[in-house]
């Protein structure tokens, strides 16, 4: 059953300078606040000036990340587009809500309403590419991106004729979401250094955002980074035994055992209470693997796992594990990578291979 998909192009816009595929975390940006926001590429390379002024941040970085991945893959014709977004287009939703309040439901501009729809990023990508094929948007907390990945996996299993799928996610920090989640005590209170955050034990996460897309193809190309094998979502694992069983079963399904896994990309977010199960796995399950973190680079958000896929793909292609992401080094070369993410109590496993 050769139903694996090759990662043939990647694109990420994040709080790090990830938009340039020719480099790989050679420079790492540090933040001393509890909020990390995207480093913008030159958007005039992607959109005209009028569009840039009209578009919200999530539309700009979401669509541009997709375009970088498509360009990187050599602009193949796409057979499906699948996007995940936990919160959708927050900034436009907020503007529209505020306008309704301010005008007491009077005359309001439709633009933020139009752009607030959750499928705006995916729809705009289709519009720009004139792609009339399958187009899906998933919005389900920490499983938004994973559901989109599973959509591509189903495409690979369902249709032998289809060749290239664009899969990714986007989420933004908005003024209101940051204010509201601050009131909910979700973020770190004290000033924090993001680069030291995963090592320190504390309460609260650093707010993050970003977009990352991959082009998955049924055939390898000269640009192939590695393979995406499968994804597994684990809803609210009730204890350590449950998550361990799920990890072993997922690997066994692909005729692998733990010893075959070289690198674990762990979704530690720096909040003690949220990280309990992941820490357990890193200490007791992934004992021989090199453990890599990523949320100190992109922050915590519902679709941060797409950043981890970008990171994994880069490691597979360059065969490098940048010092800035290593949490525990067992000197394994990156051939088989398991991403184990958690967003609150939603755990997910994503398997990548060379």
């Amino acid at each position: 059953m050769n139903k694996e998909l090759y990662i043939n192009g990647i694109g990420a816009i994040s709080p790090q300078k990830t938009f340039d595929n020719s480099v790989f975390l050679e420079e790492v940006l540090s933040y001393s606040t509890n909020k990390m926001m995207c480093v913008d590429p030159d958007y005039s390379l992607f959109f005209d000036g009028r569009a840039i002024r009209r578009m919200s941040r999530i539309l700009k970085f979401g669509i541009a990340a997709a375009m970088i991945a498509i360009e990187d893959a050599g602009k193949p014709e796409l057979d499906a587009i699948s996007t995940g977004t936990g919160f959708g287009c927050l900034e436009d939703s907020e503007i529209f809500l505020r306008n309704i309040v301010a005008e007491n439901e009077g005359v309001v501009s439709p633009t933020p309403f139009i752009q607030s729809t959750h499928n705006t990023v995916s729809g705009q990508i289709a519009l720009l590419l004139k792609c009339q094929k399958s187009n899906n948007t998933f919005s389900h907390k920490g499983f938004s991106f994973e559901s989109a990945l599973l959509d591509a996996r189903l495409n690979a299993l369902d249709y032998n004729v289809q060749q290239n799928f664009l899969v990714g996610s986007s989420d933004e920090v908005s003024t209101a979401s940051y204010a509201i989640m601050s009131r909910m005590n979700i973020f770190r209170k004290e000033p924090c250094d993001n680069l030291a955050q995963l090592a320190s034990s504390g309460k609260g996460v650093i707010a993050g955002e970003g977009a990352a897309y991959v082009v998955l193809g049924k055939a390898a190309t000269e640009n192939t980074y590695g393979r995406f094998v499968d994804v597994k979502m684990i809803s609210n694992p009730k204890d350590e035994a449950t998550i361990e069983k799920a990890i072993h079963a997922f690997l066994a399904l692909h005729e692998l055992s733990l010893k075959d896994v070289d690198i674990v990309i762990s979704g530690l977010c720096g909040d003690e209470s949220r990280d309990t199960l992941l820490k357990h796995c890193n200490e007791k399950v992934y004992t021989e693997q090199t453990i890599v973190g990523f949320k100190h680079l992109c922050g915590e958000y519902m679709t941060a796992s797409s950043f981890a896929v970008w990171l994994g793909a880069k490691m597979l292609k360059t065969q490098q594990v940048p010092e800035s992401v290593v949490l525990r080094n067992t000197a394994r070369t990156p051939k088989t990578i398991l991403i184990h993410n958690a967003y609150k109590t939603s755990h997910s496993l994503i398997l990548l291979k060379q």
Partner: protein
Amino acid sequence: MPSAVYIVGRGVISALGDDLSGNRQSLLQSQAGIKAITRLNTRYSEMLPAAEVPHTNEALAAMADMPVTTTRTALLSMIAAKEAFDSFQLPDKLNYRAGFISANTVGGMDKTEDFMKEFAVDTTKGKLHDVIHHDCGAATELVAEKLGITEVVTTISTACSSAANAMIYAARLIRNGYLDWAIAGGTDALSRFTINGFNSLMILDNELCRPFDDTRKGLNLGEGAGYVVLASEKIVAQLAQQPTVKLSGFANANDAFHQTASSPEGRGNFDAMSGALAEAGLQPADIDYINLHGTGTANNDSSEGIAISRLFGKDLPYLSSTKTYTGHTLAACGGIEAIYSTLAIEEGVVFPNLRFQHQMKELEFEPQICLLEGKEIRHVLSNSFGFGGNCTSLIFSKVNE
């Protein structure tokens, strides 16, 4: 041919009724649920008719057995999903790999917009409890947890095609062995956000909507939830009562024309309908009834009608828009209309397109205007088209056809 996926349970709540039998009765009696708005607090209550579920949140919470503070989106979802779950007659059904694939467009917006009244003035104000279930996934999680479903739980948000895409996703998960059965469909509650949004686009009719009528002026919004239970052949083999309807074809396409408008020729609509036929291995002539997307906007009905003419030629099946009864329930419409499609097959009926009077100039056909009974309905095509160019068509077929 890929293995079939069967409809083994149903649940629905809309302005027509609180359950399947209530909806069925209103449809057969040609009773629309569109009226002046009484429940939602909006300045448009007397100006813009809508199809509200005629219950307060308190009443819905009692029906759903959930806290009264729950978002209306989740309450509607729970009531319909529970009916679907209970109607699925498989012993020990939670011992199988079960999924809940839901859909909504604005999540817990009904509470967020109350929160925003205070928050907009002072960001330290507003009850935080009103926004904890703002995201689309929250309603799905609450319902899945209450039903005890864990294997695959997710939410699709592709505007007005959301529930239809949820059913496709569930069917593909079942076909590929990820799930044995799944509850799939969608939910949406009426909100000021959507009323003001659609109103700002000037596509709401201040009278009762008239889909596929030349004098149509726009849509009426509605609310509700609709879910089917989809199951594999393996599960069906264990059921005492065999299902009568299966999901035989589906396709998701994109119009790639405009963020909110359909292409004049309905190219995405055409791709979705022809793709669903191909997937089902059927010809246009095999379709006995089309449950139209038929919102009542000038643009949708024209594009949809032109695409239907191109695909079906002059030999058209019966057609009607049941949004003439339920209003446009957005992410829920694909689920609610899937259930109406199964009723059409089971009972050999075609529900009329209410209030139709004038044939559209650009079309050579009219929708069905009176209730048809005693017809052999083997295959129904159900359309759901939305913002973002999202176009989805589903085909429901009588088992053994």
